[in-house]
């Protein structure tokens, strides 16, 4: 059994359906506060001139976290659009997934997929990696082992609005212990290319599979193990 619902302009699948009202409410709350597609969201109000110091703790916390990631990734990840508007869409979905994961902490054997990013209750799940050149095909699959619970993939997407910069890669998949690290680093590597890839693999305990625009693959040693499992 699986429960599928729309939120944040994408689709979330939860298998099996556990604590559905709570999980759905978490995504709805993040979307309510952070969506720039909703004219009345708090972040839209900030865009329209509401001072940050008058904004909620949740908004300032999310912005501070995003700024922290900007520093850690040498600017490859950024919470600002080129026009200077604060856009937290690069981190909000992961924040919601992380919060949902904490609500589901006492349950086992679940899988949460939000718009192509995956969070699992624990090891054992086989996660397919989409083929960027064939949207109905799989490039490969990874087996989540040990503490690995999160898989995030960033690419030249149907929705390219949170990745800017000139592209080296066509698609980047990051496997990590938590979804925020996986999602932010996947986005950052897409934006920053090889320099950011090396920064990420040097500074974080993550496994990465990247495909450049010519179709060449690169993988960390840990990823080689995961794709062979």
């Amino acid at each position, binding site marked *: 059994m699986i429960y599928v619902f729309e939120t944040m302009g994408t689709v979330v699948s939860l298998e099996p359906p556990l604590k559905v009202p709570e999980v759905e409410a978490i995504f709805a709350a993040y979307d309510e506060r952070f969506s720039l597609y909703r004219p009345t969201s708090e972040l839209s109000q900030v865009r329209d001139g509401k001072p940050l110091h008058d904004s909620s703790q949740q908004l300032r916390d999310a912005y501070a976290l995003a700024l922290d990631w900007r520093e850690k990734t040498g600017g490859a990840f950024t919470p600002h659009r080129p026009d200077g508007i604060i856009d937290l869409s690069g981190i909000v979905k992961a924040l919601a997934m992380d919060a949902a994961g904490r609500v589901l902490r006492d349950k086992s054997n679940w*899988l949460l997929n939000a718009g192509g990013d995956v969070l699992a209750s624990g090891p054992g799940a086989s996660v397919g990696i989409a083929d960027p050149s064939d949207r109905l095909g799989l490039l490969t699959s990874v087996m989540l082992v040990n503490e690995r619970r999160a898989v995030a993939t960033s690419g030249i997407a149907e929705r390219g609005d949170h990745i800017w910069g000139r592209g080296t890669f066509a698609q980047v998949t990051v496997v990590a212990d938590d979804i925020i690290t996986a999602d932010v680093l996947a986005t950052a590597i897409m934006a920053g290319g090889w320099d950011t890839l090396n920064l990420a693999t040097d500074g974080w305990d993550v496994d*990465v599979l990247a495909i450049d625009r010519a179709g060449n693959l690169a993988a960390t040693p840990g990823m080689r193990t995961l794709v062979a499992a």
Partner: protein
Amino acid sequence: MKTRVVVGSAIASLAVLVTGWVVGTTSNIPVATSATKLADGKYTGDTEQTRYGAVQVEITVSGGAITDVAALQLTNADSRSQEISNTAAPILRDEVLKAQTASVATVSGATYTTEGYLTSLQSALDKAKA
């Protein structure tokens, strides 16, 4: 890459050590200048604990100059160091196992829109499990 850094840092420590000897026996001329004459022979540095593990080097001095540097202990020599280098390297498509949709529990892909989802693999998987 990291090995080189570690050896470099160990050599730096050794240089300090050698400087100490030189200062003690001759004058306070920096060891790096060619004016300093080191006695020929082999000098073993202390074992340095680096974040990558224990590193120890030995230098050979001949004619007053360092002619060789050898690693007596190097983190690369043990299995722990194998985990340390996490650098991504090219991998052939044949080296990654092809996966069938039926064999995976879910699909990770670039963020899809609600519309894109309808024609995605994940959508097909979800329908099969509904």
